[in-house]
């Protein structure tokens, strides 16, 4: 049975988000994470991602561009879910402060992905997908730190496959390049989480 989890909107509004860098530098404890302010800055990656887009097709008029927008929006939807999931983990009270720091940093990366992908959708003339009002996580099953980390690891592993499945579909190669760079980030998250869980962090040579 799953419980419906409503996202605390104030915590997830873009204005209230900490940047990844502020988070890593801070001696973040749960409270400061929950309260932290600061502006979301557009990363260098996001900017280079946009500058590479082909201006000629940067309007949502042709089929291929519509397709690129759809791929980006599916990725954005999955990234929003990851942000909400890390929020659940961070608020669970189950994470030690060292692990919480890492979780918050990873959540920050997902927020940066959303920002970059949304900017790309905008540059193509589309409208970026927003977060769902409700995510149905089985929060009652999160009883230990291991549960939370296993949950996070499964989302990161899934994201690797989702990006691997999206990369060949983009019309614009700049978008494939950007998606590959995000895939690398998700894969690193997954490996770190596995390491913390006592599992082989990189259990293979290829992942699809």
């Amino acid at each position, binding site marked *: *049975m*799953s419980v419906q989890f409503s996202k605390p909107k104030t915590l997830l509004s873009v204005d209230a988000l900490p940047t990844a860098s502020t988070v890593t530098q801070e001696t973040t404890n749960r409270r400061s994470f929950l309260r932290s302010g600061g502006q979301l800055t557009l990363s260098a990656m996001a900017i280079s991602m946009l500058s590479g887009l082909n201006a000629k097709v940067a309007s949502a008029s042709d089929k291929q561009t*519509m*397709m690129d927008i*759809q*791929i980006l*929006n*599916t*990725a954005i*939807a*999955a990234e929003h*879910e990851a942000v909400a999931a890390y929020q659940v983990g961070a608020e669970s009270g189950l994470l030690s402060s060292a692990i919480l720091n890492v979780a918050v940093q990873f959540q920050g990366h997902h927020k940066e992905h959303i920002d970059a992908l949304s900017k790309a959708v905008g540059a193509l003339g589309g409208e970026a997908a927003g977060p769902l009002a409700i*995510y*149905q*996580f*089985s929060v009652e*099953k999160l*009883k*230990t730190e*291991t*549960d939370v980390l*296993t*949950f996070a690891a*499964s*989302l990161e*592993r*899934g*994201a*690797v*496959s*989702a990006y*691997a*499945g*999206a*990369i*060949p*579909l983009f019309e614009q190669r700049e978008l494939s390049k950007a998606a590959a760079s995000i895939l690398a980030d998700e894969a690193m998250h997954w490996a770190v989480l596995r390491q913390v*869980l*006592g*599992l082989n962090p990189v259990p293979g040579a290829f992942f*699809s």
Partner: protein
Amino acid sequence: MSVCRAVLVFTCCVFCSFNISAYAAPPHYVMCMGCHSPSYNRTGPKHCGVFGQLAARQEGFQYSEALTMSRLRWDRQTLDKFLESPAAIVPGTSMTFAGITDANVRAQLIDYIELLTTDHNDCR
């Protein structure tokens, strides 16, 4: 160390919802878990109760117009085509996933989806 691992394995088994090893799913289902869960809607719709039904019928999921209008019914053949290349059979689908070229992998995934009637363990 081995005790630690035993505890981990136990915890993973208890923790059914997000750990693929706790599902009856084939290992390749991990490719779907970025967007799907058997039992609840995520970025993609839940898979329980899909087999044998018309496409785009899971309650509470916002499907693309393309899949909604497709009039596909999910059987082994339509699922096989869809999983091989979702956009080829449903142009405009929001399942923006390149597809699976290996027919054997597709068959294993379809075996699992076929099992997922609403009374299946993974659907509770």
